[in-house]
């Protein structure tokens, strides 16, 4: 019984780790660019597929974690610099639809390149198998996801709070015109943040692939969950994404365990309950 509880808790944390990698970027992009990036989930999928390719080419898992995020980030940065930056003055619906168009293009391109079948990745030997927890066992790879989520969360927080680049980013988020006047290169900050957010999603995709395989539609699945996370946590808040990921991870894990038919409903019910009291999310700012 006690182990059940611990197992569920770890499952929730592993799921939360993945959700955080996706939702943090989504939230960051909204906070700084005021854009809801609909293609964000597709970058997650792209990460998973590129991870598969890297593993297939090199025969190793670890390089994928290092190589794939920069590539995905570069694709994201190119998209931002070539299209999105020209329509920031328009109402938000236009940016949403532009990224919706990109989501369609990228999703279909992946289908052209990889075909319809799901691609599995073997976890590295170090993370295969199980660890003993008392008299029971738990898959190692899920523990790795917990650690990865925590480490990336900590790094993002450190960069935003303790470095000069983070300071500029936060200044642009707070008041981009004022930051511009004070000499910040706002256009470059936006491109870099967009690229970094896509890289995070790509990292999430690589990390998810050994557990879920890389498959078409995984981006669309994750983006809806990530939306729920940022709505709960508040758009633009990294801490909010972390708390939101934990709440959604917990709701899905326990929901799937105790009430399998209604797991999704529970997630939305939790979100609804939070929004009744705080329509802008737990850590978001009122519009």
């Amino acid at each position: 019984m006690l182990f059940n509880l611990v197992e569920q808790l770890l499952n929730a944390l592993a799921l939360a780790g993945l959700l955080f990698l996706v939702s943090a970027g989504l939230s960051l992009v909204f906070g700084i660019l005021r854009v809801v990036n609909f293609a964000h989930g597709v970058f997650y999928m792209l990460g998973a597929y590129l991870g598969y390719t890297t593993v297939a080419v090199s025969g190793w898992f670890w390089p994928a974690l290092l190589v794939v995020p920069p590539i995905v980030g570069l694709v994201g940065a190119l998209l931002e610099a070539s299209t999105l930056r020209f329509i920031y003055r328009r109402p938000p619906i236009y940016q949403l639809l532009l990224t919706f168009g990109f989501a369609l293009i990228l999703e279909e391109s992946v289908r052209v390149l990889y075909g319809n079948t799901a691609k599995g990745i073997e976890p590295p030997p170090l993370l295969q198998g199980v660890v003993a927890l008392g008299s029971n066992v738990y898959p190692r790879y899920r523990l790795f996801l917990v650690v990865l989520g925590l480490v990336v969360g900590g790094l993002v927080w450190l960069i935003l709070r303790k470095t000069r680049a983070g300071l500029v980013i936060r200044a642009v988020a707070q008041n981009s015109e004022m930051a511009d006047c004070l000499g910040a290169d706002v256009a470059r900050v936006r491109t870099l943040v967009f690229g970094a957010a896509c890289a995070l999603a790509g990292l999430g995709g690589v990390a998810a692939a050994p557990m879920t395989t890389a498959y078409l539609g995984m981006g669309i699945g994750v983006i809806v969950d990530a939306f729920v996370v940022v709505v709960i946590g508040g758009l633009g808040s990294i801490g909010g994404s972390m708390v939101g990921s934990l709440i959604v991870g917990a709701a899905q894990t326990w929901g799937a365990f105790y009430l399998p038919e209604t797991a999704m409903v529970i997630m939305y019910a939790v979100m609804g309950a939070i929004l009744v009291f705080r329509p802008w999310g737990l850590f978001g700012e009122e519009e």
Partner: protein
Amino acid sequence: MSRARAAALIAALVLAVLPWVLARHQLSLLTDLLIFGLFALSLDLIMGYTGLVSFGHAAYFGLGAYGSALVLIHFGQPVPVALLAGALLAGVVAVPVGWFSTRATGIYFAMLTLAFAQLLYTVAYKWRDLTGGSDGIAGVPKTALFWGGPSLASPRAFYFLVAACVLLSLAACYALVRSPFGRAIQAIRENERRFTSLGRDPRPFKLVVFVIAAMFAGLAGALFAPFRGFASPEVMFWVFSGQGLMMVIMGGIGTLIGPVVGAMVFILIQEILSSYTEHWMIFTGAVFVLMVIFLPGGLVGTARRLAARV
């Protein structure tokens, strides 16, 4: 105004003549276009005239489709009864959703409507006994026009029903946006703070327009189910909501007729591209991107601007 009336008259005449000119599959495509036109029209009410971007509008289309399918299959009532049932079901569900969602504004409103729509989608997907789960409900019959009345089973008869519904809805929406209520929602779109400071509460207005838009979307869905013969969770999926937004933007936001045109062009582009390539989604996506960047006013908005320049 008289010019607009003349255009409307010509459009109605063309719609009346077409079924005698077109081949069977073309008529079927035209019926499809009109149904999606009605869906986009309903979305424009809330998006274009109230300034609230709903990202979950497909849910109400789907509710209408399920409501109408269930009435037709289990009770065998005439089609108009099923249409009423579908629209009412969508409207009734939209009341609590709208009540929650209109507490938020801007992007939060869009996300809330998306989340509720996904919730409704999940319910439709999981409630196997009622909705048939992922298989949906197949074999929805096209029953009679009224009790003991003529059958709507022929493509031409059903087309006329759809065309009549779309034209009446269009007229109703025009009347609505010109009414004092319509002026009020446009005032909310232009400047909500000022609206509030004039002593009016915007939320009841938003809720009412949300429910009305949901009912028109429900009507479109209620036509869709007997026309295609099925209702499935697909039509409630968020991708369809996104496509609805694209139809509105493509045709011209806040013009009513624009979204109808936009929906038709959108579906036609998909039809044509999908007959040439299996990977038409890439090209649809590219068309989206180009339209958003270069034609923000949509087809009708751009046409009007060009006409004003001449």
